C-alpha cells in the first residue's frame, strides 16, 4: 500500500511536468520546450535533493523539525563559495571549468560539513536542543562572515559571487544540470542502500547501538550524503530553508510509515512536486516571477511552528 502511494506521487509528478512543459505552448515550440525543459529539470533536481537531504538529516539529528537549512548547512556552502572567490580572485574563479568548480565545492562542503556537524553531533549527542541552537547560530555567523568577505571584495569579484549564489531556476547552466543529476542519482541510490539501517538508527542512539548498529559511522555516511545533496540544491538555486521541512513532513504524512525505503523517495518526489506546482502556479497562472522562494519560506515557517506546538501539546 505504501509503495502504491509512492507510485501515485510519481504519477502526479509526471502529469504536472507534462502540464508544465505543454501549457499554452506556442511557436517556436522547440525553443520554448528546451527552455521549459531546463527549468523543469532544475526544479525537480532541487526539490528532490532538498527533500531527500532533509529526511536523512532528520534521522541523523533524531528530530523531525530540522532541516539542513535551519542549522546552517547551506550557509556553509555560501561561505565556501565566497571564500573560494576571495582566494582565487574573481577572474581566477570565473575561468575555472564549471564541472571542476562544482565538484570541488561539493567536496569542500562534504569535508567541512562532516567536521563541523559530525563533530557537533557526536559530541553533543545527548543534548539535542543545544546542538540545534549551535547550528542555528553557526549559520548566522557563517552568513555574516560570507557577507563580510563580500564587502571586502572588489566590485568585480562581488559580481562573480552574486552570480554564483543567486542563479535562478531559469538561468541554470546545462552542464551543471548533468553533474547535479548524476550526483543526485548516486546519492539517492546510496541513501536507499542505507535505508534499513537508518530505520534502526531512528530508534535513537543508545537503542540502535544496543541492537548492534554501528551508529556513529552510519551517521557520518548519512551526513556526507546530506552534504552532497545540499551542495546540489544550493549550487543550482541558492538556499531555501523550509522547502525540505515541507517535503519531509508531507511525505511522512502521505506514506504513513517510518520506513526510509518509502519515506526517502516520497520526500524527494514531494519536494519536486512542491517546486514544480509552485512555479507553475506563480509563473503561468498568476504571472508573477520569483515569488516562489518567499512563499515556500512563509508556509514552511508556519508548518514548523505548527509542528512545534502540536508536538508539545501531545
Amino acid at each position, binding site marked *: 500500500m505504501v509503495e502504491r502511494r509512492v507510485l501515485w506521487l510519481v504519477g502526479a509528478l509526471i502529469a504536472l511536468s507534462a502540464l508544465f512543459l505543454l501549457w499554452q505552448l506556442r511557436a517556436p515550440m522547440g525553443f520554448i520546450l528546451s527552455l521549459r525543459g531546463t527549468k523543469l529539470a532544475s526544479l525537480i533536481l532541487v526539490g528532490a535533493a532538498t527533500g531527500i537531504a532533509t529526511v536523512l538529516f532528520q534521522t541523523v539529528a533524531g528530530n523531525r523539525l530540522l532541516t539542513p537549512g*535551519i542549522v546552517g548547512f547551506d550557509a556553509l556552502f555560501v561561505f565556501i563559495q565566497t571564500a573560494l572567490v576571495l582566494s582565487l580572485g574573481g577572474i581566477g574563479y570565473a575561468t575555472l571549468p564549471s564541472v571542476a568548480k562544482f565538484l570541488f565545492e561539493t567536496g569542500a562542503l562534504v569535508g567541512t560539513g562532516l567536521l563541523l556537524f559530525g563533530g557537533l553531533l557526536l559530541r553533543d549527542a545527548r543534548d539535542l*536542543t543545544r546542538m540545534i541552537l*549551535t547550528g542555528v547560530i553557526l549559520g548566522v*555567523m557563517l552568513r*555574516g562572515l560570507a557577507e563580510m568577505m563580500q564587502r571586502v571584495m572588489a566590485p568585480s569579484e562581488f559580481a562573480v559571487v552574486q552570480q554564483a549564489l543567486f542563479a535562478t531556476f531559469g538561468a541554470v547552466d546545462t552542464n551543471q544540470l548533468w553533474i547535479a543529476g548524476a550526483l543526485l542519482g548516486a546519492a539517492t541510490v546510496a541513501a536507499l542502500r542505507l535505508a534499513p539501517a537508518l530505520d534502526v538508527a531512528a530508534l535513537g542512539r543508545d537503542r540502535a547501538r544496543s541492537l548492534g548498529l554501528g551508529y556513529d559511522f552510519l551517521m557520518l555516511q548519512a551526513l556526507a550524503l546530506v552534504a552532497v545533496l545540499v551542495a546540489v540544491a544550493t549550487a543550482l538555486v541558492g538556499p531555501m530553508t523550509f522547502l525540505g521541512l515541507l517535503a519531509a513532513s508531507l511525505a511522512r504524512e502521505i506514506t504513513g510509515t517510518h520506513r526510509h525505503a518509502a519515506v526517502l523517495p516520497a520526500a524527494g518526489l514531494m519536494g519536486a512536486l512542491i517546486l514544480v506546482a509552485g512555479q507553475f502556479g506563480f509563473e503561468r497562472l498568476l504571472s508573477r516571477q520569483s515569488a516562489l522562494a518567499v*512563499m515556500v*519560506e*512563509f508556509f514552511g515557517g508556519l508548518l514548523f511552528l505548527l509542528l512545534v506546538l502540536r508536538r508539545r501539546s501531545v
Partner: protein
Amino acid sequence: MRSSPRSPGPIADLLRPAILIAAALIALTTASLAIGSASLWGGDLGTGWLLAVSRFPRTAAALLAGAGLAVAGTVVQQAVQNRLVEPSLTGTTESAMLGLIAITLIAPGMSIGWKAALAAVAALAGTGGFLMLARRVPMQDPLLLPIVGLIYGGILSAMAIWLAWNADLMQLLGAWRLGEFSGIVQGRYELLWIIAALSLLLYTLADRLTLLGLGETQARSLGLNYTQTRLLALAVMSLIASLVTVTVGALPFVGLVAPNLISRWRGDNLRANLPFIAAGGGGLVLAADIAGRLIRYPYEIPAATVFSVFGAAIFLWLLHSVPARSHG
C-alpha cells in the same frame, strides 16, 4: 551567580567596575570621533563642522542604539524568563519592519516620528504573538524558545519581503534589515535620544523587572501587578526596538550578548546592573562600528554584519561554557 572575590564594601564594589567600563567607553568614543574617511585635521572640511555634523551624531547613535537594544533584550528576557532571547529572536524587530512597510504603503508622507510610533505598536503586537507561542514551549527546554523565535521572525520577515517586493520598497526594507551607521548625520538620528529617556524609565522599574523574571506565580505572590508591569515593560521595549530599526536598522544579537556578559560578570541584580548592561551594549555596538570602518578602510562594512560574526561567536561561547540546564 558565581563567587567573586569579596570586595571591601558596596561602594568600592560598584566604583571599580564603573570606572573600568567608563574608561572603555571614553576610549571607544575618542577612537570613533577620530576615525573616518575624511581627515579630522588639515582636510578640506573644518574640524568642528565635521565633528558636529557627522562624527558626533554617528558615535552618539551607535552608543544609544546599543544601549537601548541591550536594555530591551534584558526586558524581554525577564518577561519570558529565558536568557537566550532578544528583540530579533522574539519577532519584535521583524514586526516593526512589517509595520513600517505597511505604514509606508498606506501613508507615505507621514513624519518619521509617527512612523516609529506606529511601528512600535506593530512590534508590540508581534511580541504579543511571540508570548502566546512561548506559553506553549515548556520551561524545561529553554533552548527551544530562541529557535521558535527565530522561525517566527522568519515568517514575519517573509511577509515583509512579500509586501515590500510587491510595492517596490525592497531598497527601503534592505536598509532596515541591515543596521549601519555610515548614513547617520546631524538631523537623522535625534529620535534615538528618546531611548535615553526610555532607559531611565526602565531603570526606575528595575526591581519590578527583576521580579518579572521570577515568573508569574512567584511575582504575584510578592505583590507585583504582573500583567500591567509586563505590558508596560514590553511596550517600552517595542518602542526602543522600532526606534533603532527606523533610524539605523536591525542589529541582531546585541540584546542577547550584552545582558548575558554583564550577568556573568556582575550577577543578576538589575537595579545595580542595568546601567552596566546599557553601557556594555553601547560599547559593543560602537566597537563593531569602528571595526567596520577599519577592516577595509576607507570603505565601510555595516556594524550589523560585524556584529553578527562577533556576536554569534560570543553567543556560542555563552551557550557552551555553562551546562544547558542552568539557562533560563
